[in-house]
């Protein structure tokens, strides 16, 4: 029984693994601000988001709506996969500087 469940899970994962690569979207953090602060992405697709932190201080990309959380050290970049998203707006913020670092992903 357990073997069969494992096999099914592995097969399902294998099917998903051969899917096409996700389109890449890029964003910068500079002076504790996201640029662009509004990122328009296609709805219904998995997206590879690359965030470059140009500040010398660390930041944490955080979004409750996207279910994402990731530390991005100063002068480095982070890869975050998001979606597939239904059309709509998905706010995100920098948890270390939430007063200024605000933005949203717009899925169309």
């Amino acid at each position: 029984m357990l073997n069969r469940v494992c096999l099914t899970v592995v097969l399902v994962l294998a099917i998903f693994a051969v899917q096409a690569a996700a389109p890449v979207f890029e964003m910068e953090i500079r002076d504790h601000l996201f640029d662009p602060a509004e990122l328009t992405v296609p709805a219904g697709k998995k997206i590879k988001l690359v965030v470059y932190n140009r500040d010398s201080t660390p930041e944490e990309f955080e979004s409750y709506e996207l279910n994402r959380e990731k530390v991005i050290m100063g002068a480095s970049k982070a890869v975050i996969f998001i979606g597939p998203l239904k059309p709509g707006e998905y706010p995100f913020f920098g948890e270390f500087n939430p007063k200024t670092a605000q933005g949203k992903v717009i899925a169309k």
Partner: protein
Amino acid sequence: MLLTSVVLVLREVLEAALLFSLLMALSKRLGISWRWVSVALIVGLLGAAIYGFNIDIVSEWFDGVGQEVVNAFLQIVIYALLCLLATFAARYSRGFVVPEALLTMLMGASVALAIVREGAEIMIYLSAFVQLPDQLTSVLAGSAIGAGIGVSVGAVFYYALLNLGRRAAIIIGAVLLTLVAAGMASQAAQLLIQADWLPSQYPVWDSSWLVEEQTVTGQLLYALIGYEATPAPLQLFIYAVAILLIIFIAGIFGRSRGSAEVSHA
């Protein structure tokens, strides 16, 4: 700066603090020594510092998703340790011979790993302010307040658990241990989806109209049962499997297997 650090530190501390107080209450109920508490705290904080200061290296692993993979690994190990703990604690409370050192080791290791995971983020956050002495004071004050609130919530939780009757305490303690453990497994799944190691799909539901994740209730539920307003199907599946697995393992191996019975229950 002050409020930001209160919220940030509280969020991170809460999860480890709830696990900490749950296991301390379990320890007390089973009459096990508390030696593991200080060791877990020290090892956890040291580990958090080491992990935090090397996060830039870890982040580069696996094509830039090293952080997710390492965090998911930590969560899975914590889940496995809690599975073992539930099993051996069940045996111990039923009067079977279980070395006390095994129980204390399982408790200490799971709490230490939870502190590594959550503490690293606090270390990284604080490290940014070491160069900025004018802001450092308010950030440290805020962090202390956040940590204080987190620890207080843990203390309230601890005394609430101890004030229950023996039977209620065992049932509620076992249920909470199972849900906390399953929450760890579900977070591991979420991290692996974020890393694109597991397939991503539309969320099963959106319960943010009911409980928003960023509210106090949402954060408490997140720490306690792994609440997500928009869980992915795979995350829910793994949550359910994690619950069934711990019940199955603790149910089977937590009972008699012909071992010698010693009555100290």
